[in-house]
């Protein structure tokens, strides 16, 4: 028998017992559907994280903090030299403050291209043309940090002018008609000094940022010149040591550095008493959590598929039983055992294909629908997040895995069919 005939005969046989095939296909469908949705969630969320990585920090940047000698258990002893860890750490956690001496130490470490202290700036309000004051938090724009912009440009790192990027939610509130109209307008930022006197710094809006997970959020992004200015204003009246305190610093290194070189750089910094993390490290934690969740969900889907695999074994054993005579006859007529095996195992693979293709197709349709609905409602504050998204590779992978499971499941009945003795099957009862 030609291979093509084996395949077409197997497909034909699949439809011989329609109810049985349908039930088995449904079982596989459930598994494949679940797997499609769960892997879609993995793809969607991780894809979103990847696209927002640039908003959190560049690839050639390390965030450096002083390594605290915190005890492993029990409450931490008070240390007057600690500072609030800032927006990116666990709320309430503190880290040891750095000073310009530390910055100099870091600068001396080999592999460090530049160091910039991250200044903790706490502005009180922002005010636009409308005259209403809104409370605000600010983030300093760092080297390589890319905001996701709705309009305009990134705040300039090098410019000496005071530049600011507004979160999109502030545009209308500040009395600016559109995002485009906001670009170039002047805003006033209020900030108190150590004597609680309110000072006002004027800055030019250069960009409007999209709200994004882990990114600037609802804070304005100030360029280094503006950050320094705000910091100076805020520190007015403080003595030298009190002014010379930073929570963390940003280190840039060679963008072409390999993972090994990066970890060696981290080791060198660690030797000097600094903890350095890359953006990938920070993102990595997120991704690991998501990957683990997706893995658990996938495991459930695979369990469903394995159960469905037993369905295939059952279905095919029944048809081998039913077709004993036919198998015997085909063998008597000179059909080889290999072809008989092929006939049944291809039938299994085809059932697997039917179930998984159907599961994937409907999974994509339903997943896209749910994802679109969620984006409009629950996740409307996170533009760009497609909770469930699909890529051709993983869908093809799912179908291939299911077909492989089906093949394994089908090999037992197929072997039984192939081994069948033609005389036994032809003997009259």
């Amino acid at each position: 028998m030609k291979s093509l005939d084996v395949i077409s005969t197997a497909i034909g046989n699949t439809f011989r017992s329609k109810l049985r095939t349908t039930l088995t296909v449904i079982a596989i469908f459930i598994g494949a559907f679940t797997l499609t949705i769960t892997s879609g969630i993995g793809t969607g969320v991780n894809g979103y994280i990847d696209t927002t990585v640039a908003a959190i920090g560049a690839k050639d940047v390390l965030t450096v903090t002083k390594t605290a000698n915190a005890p492993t258990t029990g409450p931490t002893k008070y240390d007057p030299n600690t500072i609030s860890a800032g927006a990116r750490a666990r709320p309430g956690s503190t880290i040891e403050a750095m000073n310009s001496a530390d910055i100099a130490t870091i600068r001396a470490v080999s592999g460090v291209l530049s160091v910039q202290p991250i200044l903790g700036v706490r502005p009180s309000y922002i005010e636009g043309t409308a005259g209403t004051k809104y409370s605000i938090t600010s983030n300093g724009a760092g080297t390589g940090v890319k905001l996701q912009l709705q309009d305009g440009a990134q705040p300039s790192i090098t410019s000496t002018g005071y530049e600011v990027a507004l979160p999109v939610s502030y545009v209308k509130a500040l009395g600016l008609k559109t995002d485009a109209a906001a670009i170039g307008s002047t805003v006033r930022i209020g900030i108190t000094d150590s004597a609680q006197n309110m000072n006002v710094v004027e800055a030019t809006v250069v960009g409007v940022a999209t709200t994004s997970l882990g990114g600037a959020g609802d804070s304005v992004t100030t360029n280094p010149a503006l950050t320094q200015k705000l910091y100076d204003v805020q520190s007015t009246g403080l003595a030298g040591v009190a002014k010379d305190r930073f929570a963390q610093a940003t280190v840039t290194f060679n963008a072409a550095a390999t993972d090994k070189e990066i970890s060696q750089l981290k080791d060198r910094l660690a030797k000097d008493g600094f903890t350095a993390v890359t953006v990938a490290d920070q993102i990595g934690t997120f991704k690991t959590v998501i990957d683990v969740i997706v893995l658990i969900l996938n495991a459930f889907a695979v369990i469903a598929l394995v159960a469905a695999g037993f369905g295939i074994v059952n279905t095919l054993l029944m048809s081998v039983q039913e077709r004993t005579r036919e198998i015997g006859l085909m063998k008597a007529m000179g059909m080889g055992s290999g072809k008989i095996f092929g006939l049944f195992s291809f039938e299994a693979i085809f059932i697997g294909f039917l179930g998984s293709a159907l599961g994937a197709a409907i999974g994509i349709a339903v997943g896209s629908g749910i994802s679109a609905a969620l984006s409009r409602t629950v996740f409307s504050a996170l533009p760009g997040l497609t909770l469930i998204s699909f890529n051709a590779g993983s869908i093809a992978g799912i179908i291939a895995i299911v077909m492989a499971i089906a093949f394994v499941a089908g090999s037992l009945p197929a072997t039984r069919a192939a081994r069948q003795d033609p005389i036994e099957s032809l003997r009259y009862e």
Partner: protein
Amino acid sequence: MTVPILSTHELKKSYGRGQSRFDALKGVSLEIFAGESVAIVGKSGSGKSTLMHLLALLDRPSSGSVNLNGSDAILLKGRVLNGTRNKTFGFVFQQFFLTGGATVLENVILPLKIAGVGSRERRRRGLAALEQLELVDKAKNKASALSGGQKQRAVIARALVNTPKVIFADEPTGNLDSATGAVVENILFGLNRDRGITLIVVTHDEELAARCDRRIFIRDGLIVASDASPNPPHGAHAARATATSEANAA
């Protein structure tokens, strides 16, 4: 001297081992020449089907040999054996072994499909075979929708579609009423006469056996008698068919 298309030498077949061992054939030697029609006759359990299965190379003897065209069939293995069976033999059984859900044509062309014949050629030859058996109008019907006689005709069409040298028929009329059975017999003997296809019929129907050129009687796994028709219907073959196993039987 002509080489027999099929011959056996001291053929033995036992089933099981030890205490439950059963000798179904205890040393059968026979020769069947191309174009003959031979009946294998015997009571139930005498070993007729066992012999037929060995002749059709569906089973291996415990000892002794089956020779096809003069060479020992034990040498045929795997693919070659399958190919030989496919091209040389056609089968007609007491039960029809048709796939009910498939069409008559699909059933008939099964040997061609196994042989790897292209689909157009399959169709052409399948329809030609059905034509001969006056079943063309049923080609597209489900096999399960045929009457008993029609089913057996479809089976014969399937047996001859690949132009075999030998047709094995195990109780071909056992499931049919006498009128329909006669029709099927006529078709089989017609093929034997007109196309020279060797016919090996397993039966305990005296009348059917009487129509064959030669009869081989089996009892308890041994040939007990063998005769040729005194007035052979197709004399040419019968002349060559001098019973070779009388010596064994004696």
